[in-house]
């Protein structure tokens, strides 16, 4: 009888951790570190604007069952996640709970506004929230995920740590590849739609020449587009970059007016068909930038 109980509880222990994440890139890293010990639910699909994910009620059911919730943080989820958490009635992931992991806490954020005012557009007081588009931040993000998973299942520490080491090994190999590409295109200049690729530009030493949005989240006016056209006249080795959800017509119009090629970069895992995981996200970004 005792043996049956022991067997029963050991089976219970092997139940995968129910992990909920806000974005697919987090899901990809959780999969790397959690292996077969995690059952992952992603609240968005990768093609959405990460600031404006639709708070579908079905997500409440998923949050209700979560053992742990990993978020990007830096107010990126502020527009959709709080009411879902409130409705889920899951004390494990309430704000302030140790199982609500804000990964931005592990990162030194850039672009912290000196003045927090909505006159400056849709700014994030904590700093630019798109830090995951710096490949240099991947180890820190993975570390945050590792710590979170150990918190839920401390007896699996060794397993998670091994997976983490494997992930870092993969990352180091990829890093060499990526840095070789970056060396070749380090004189690249970018016109970006939204302040999405500032971390990427910092990694690659790219100059951000202009932004199509005059202020974050504010649509461009004809005059602003004209100003960009005048500003970039005669400049070489320059690209217009946007994300899949940005207004493609504006991007095309600017491309036509300036003769500068535009490229749609993936901003998250699953945002383009070829972007299946965190490594192919950066593979695709650097491939598209170097074409």
């Amino acid at each position, binding site marked *: 009888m005792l043996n049956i109980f022991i067997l029963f509880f050991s089976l219970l222990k092997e139940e995968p951790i129910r992990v909920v994440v806000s974005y697919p890139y987090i899901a990809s890293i959780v999969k790397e570190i959690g292996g077969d010990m995690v059952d992952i639910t992603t609240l968005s699909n990768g093609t959405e604007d990460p600031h404006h994910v639709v708070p579908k009620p079905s997500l409440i059911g998923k949050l209700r069952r979560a053992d742990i919730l990993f978020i990007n943080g830096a107010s990126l989820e502020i527009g959709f996640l709080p009411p879902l958490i409130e409705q889920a*009635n899951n004390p*494990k992931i309430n704000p302030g709970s140790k199982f609500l992991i804000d990964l931005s806490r592990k990162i030194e954020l850039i672009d912290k506004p*000196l003045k927090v005012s909505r006159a400056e557009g849709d700014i994030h007081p904590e700093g630019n929230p798109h830090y995951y588009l710096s490949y240099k931040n991947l180890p820190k993000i993975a570390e945050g995920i590792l710590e979170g998973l150990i918190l839920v299942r401390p007896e699996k520490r060794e397993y998670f740590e091994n997976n983490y080491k494997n992930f870092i090994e993969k990352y180091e190999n990829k890093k060499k590849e990526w840095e070789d590409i970056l060396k070749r295109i380090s004189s690249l200049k970018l016109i970006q739609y939204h302040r999405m690729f500032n971390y990427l530009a910092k990694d690659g030493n790219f100059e951000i020449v202009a932004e199509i949005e005059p202020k974050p989240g504010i649509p461009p006016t004809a005059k602003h587009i004209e100003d960009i056209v005048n500003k970039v006249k005669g400049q070489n080795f320059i690209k217009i970059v946007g994300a899949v959800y940005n207004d493609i017509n504006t991007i095309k119009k600017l491309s036509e007016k300036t003769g500068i090629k535009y490229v749609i970069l993936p901003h998250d895992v699953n945002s383009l068909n070829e972007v299946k995981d965190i490594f192919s996200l950066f593979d695709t970004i650097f491939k598209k930038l170097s074409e």
Partner: protein
Amino acid sequence: MTNFIVIFLYTQTLSFNPFVQNIFNPDISLIADFSFVGSDIKDEWREELLIPEFIGHFHSHIGKNRGFNFNYLELVFSAFVDPYFELFSINTINPEHGIEIEELYGDLKFLPSGFGSRIGIFKSEIGRHNFKHAHYWDFYDSPIIYDALLGSEGLSGLGLRITYTFPFNFFLKFGSEIFQNSYEEPVSFNADGFKFLDKEIESFPKPSLFTGYVKTSFDFINHVFLLGSSILYGPSNIYHSNHHKEASHNYAISSPRTVLYGFDITYKYIIDAYRYISFESEYLSRIIDGKLYLVNETDTNSAVEHNLYKINSGFYSGIVFKLNRRIRTGLRFDYLFKPSVKIDGNVSQNDIKDLYKISFMAEYNFTEFSRIRFQYNYDHTKYFEEKVRPINEFILNINLSIGAHGAHMF
């Protein structure tokens, strides 16, 4: 330099007062709402509008006077009290009522998984439209069936809510509320007694109002469905005074058991990151089973008691299309069914037929914090001087919000 000044001032503050606590200040937001209304009905006639057998005196808390209207200023405070409670205070300031507590409640954060609870003054979670604040409505005004059965501000009260969210992969939630009494101007539910001519209308025990509801939601790729069903049960002591009319038109209703039930469905097709088409429809029905007090024709200082059995029903259906990140447009159809009224067991004949309203809106959202909206209403639900008086309304509405306002529900 600016950073240096900020740091200097902060350290100076600390050096002068090591007990500064303003970092604990709650989130505060202000929402202001204004409109310009063009209408083919005079402002002074509005007081006399009614929907017969539904509501005696029609009142909208959203401005409908010709010309400029200041509708409300909503002031919201919210913060965690401690690890166990979160406190919300939603107050409205408007020219008619001054400062009003619209909601003031605490959410319990220490309950077992799946359970939620709210205590205080709050909007009921029944139905689809009721819990939404005006700045979050898809249209300028509330659906007619709400105006007629729950009042233009919907049902709210002082009481307790318990909810349970099931641990399923789809959304399924049960909720129940108990309210002391109707908090806003009573339209269907009221436990307080009053005197009607020579009749003393007895009050009913409190807490008096009970609700129960279930909500569920599921998705198929980009198709989102949300379904709900609700029931309310409580007493109705309602005094109907027809403004600007002789007192002989006044009447009172007293029912120990009034039931209001409803069904709602929301469907949203998410086209891409910014575009969607959504359809929302809600049906409400109220059954009053009690006493009707009419003015005695031979002695206008006394009332005559009758048995009353009345059913009022109606629905609204609206479709909203978000064309891009900034622009939304929508069409809503409101309909009230012919009321079924029995007085002393006899069917009361009335010639109320099709009562309906058609609303069209188009809005431009500069950002999530500022919106300008145009709406046209053709309202065929109001009676004026014993007959339907169709109303044409053109509304230009501006809504501005500042501060730390939380995200909205689906």
